[in-house]
């Protein structure tokens, strides 16, 4: 498993989710800390394309052998794409949480909400407190 990393170009939510903003769209996933706490992911139950996501609310679940975790939406919007590959290989969430382990792509309803999220540095500080 990769070492703990928190890429600088991403924004972070205190419930251990990240967002990569690409204009009016964003990609969401879970952070290294989240996948490490969960253990080896065995199942990802994705939402439907077209479903609405509500900021700070769960939109999907990720399962390991011993636990199930809600995945929290860092920002609000509508789901435009789901990572279908995870159905076959959910372990990508562990191996590459910021790349191949992406969960959904969302059309943002209010891109300005991104300001409420944390930088990599602030998120790391949060983790040190855990």
């Amino acid at each position, binding site marked *: 498993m990769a070492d703990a990393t928190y890429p600088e170009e991403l924004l972070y939510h205190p419930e251990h989710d990240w967002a990569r903003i690409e204009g009016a769209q964003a990609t969401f996933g879970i952070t290294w800390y989240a996948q490490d706490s969960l253990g*080896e992911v*065995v*199942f990802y139950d994705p939402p439907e394309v077209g479903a609405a996501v509500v900021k700070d609310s769960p939109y999907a679940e990720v*399962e*390991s*052998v*011993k636990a199930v975790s809600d995945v929290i939406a860092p920002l609000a919007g509508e789901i435009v794409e789901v990572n279908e590959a995870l159905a076959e290989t*959910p*372990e990508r969430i562990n191996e590459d949480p910021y790349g191949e382990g992406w969960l959904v792509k969302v059309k943002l309803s209010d891109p300005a909400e991104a300001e409420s999220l944390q930088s990599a540095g602030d998120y790391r500080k949060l983790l040190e407190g855990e």
Partner: protein
Amino acid sequence: MTLAETPMQRERAQTIFEKSKPGRRAAVLPPAGVPEPPLSELIPAKLLRDEPPRLPEVAEPEIVRHYNRLSRRNFDLDTGFYPLGSCTMKHNPRLNERVAALPGHARLHPAQEPRRAQGALELCWLLQESLAEICGLPHVSLQPSAGSHGELAGLLLTRAFHADRGEARTKVLAPDTSHGTNPASVTMAGYEIVKLATDERGGIEMDDLRAKVDDEVACLMLTNPNTLGLFDENIAEIAALIHDTGGTLYYDGANLNAVMGHSRPGDMGFDIVHVNLHKSFSQPHGGGGPGAGPIAVSERIEPYLPRPQVVRRADGNGSGSSFDLDFDRPKSIGRLRGFQGNFGVFVRSYAYILSLGADGLAEASETAVLNANYLKARLAQGRAGKYVPIAFDRHCMHEFVLSGKPMKRELGVATLDLAKRLLDFGFHPPTVYFPLLVEEALMVEPTETETKESLDAFAAAVEQILAEAESDPELAKQAPYTTPVRRLDEVKATRHPVLRQPL
């Protein structure tokens, strides 16, 4: 550590289906003795099966050999120490099996006329009376089939109780240390679970309770002593708080083994209690059941009890009494299952209660508490005291919880690894990772039927494993080595489920 394979490891798993060979069989059936037309003359072809199911084709000697060999791949209570916290793995008396097998009990059809099942109904009634006395609550239903079934029953009783008062409450309170069945039952009963914090003494955090008690609260679910093995000394105040706001108080009887004959949940203020007959009352666990979860309730809950109830009626001619199934219960929540419940379990539990009697039951609880405190004291010494210290340092009741946090931090060995290494020493490990409140939890319940030597041997094994871990932590992390299989890949099992034999 490399060891040669044990004989049992060398014997690879093979299901009974893989031992099948066309043409082999065990059963010889009686001749029909009646005309034998083709089935299609009796039943339309559309409703008939084309090919019989692919059950194995094996002869009797092979079946017996298969299951005998399979049984030896199990560790069991008759064979060794089984200190699973919250499970009360006490000895299962064989007398109970013998009486349960009496044809008068075993071959009695549940729909037999009550008049011709008086022995069975009287046994049910006597068991009810005994449980009522033990629990301190006057009315008992034997219907629920297990503890969690009893929990669901208790919540449905609560719902009926409130509905009868024109109220529709939405929430149920339970401590964060509660057994998983509690919140699961809450959701099944249509309520929302609200968690209560635990204080530094290991009991309910009273300020948290006071903040969360309101008139939306239907019920508070507790066990006392709790899953930390500690008696909550605030129980009287807790009961008053809930009752004052109109809620019911539910007792999860999983820990009854600590208090039989010493304290009674009814006297503590509980309205509804479930009793796990497969815990305190010696019903064998069977590898995951059967059990039974009868409920005892207070006067105000009685009207809502499931239907039917086993009752005693005075005989019209005054010559005694008879026993009956009472269906005339207008406020009943209804049935929870078919017929009367797990009667075979009632026979065994009743035999146990008869055997022990008032004195024996009180002695059982006293010895359970003594054994637990003794083992706790032994494990407070040496390396155990250092690496797996007690989570709440006070006298426990029938079980106690250790934390493997120092072991993990200093030796890199997790509670799971300690548990797996215990398997090599011939012990079933304690319950691990429960309650969630304690990090790297290890919940130990020895029960009253263990000898002092058995407890000493367990403590010695823990000591030895920790000594090993100090010099070579890998040993525990790769354990077990001597069990029929070694650590199993649970990730693979869940990622690519294979849930039946492919044929």
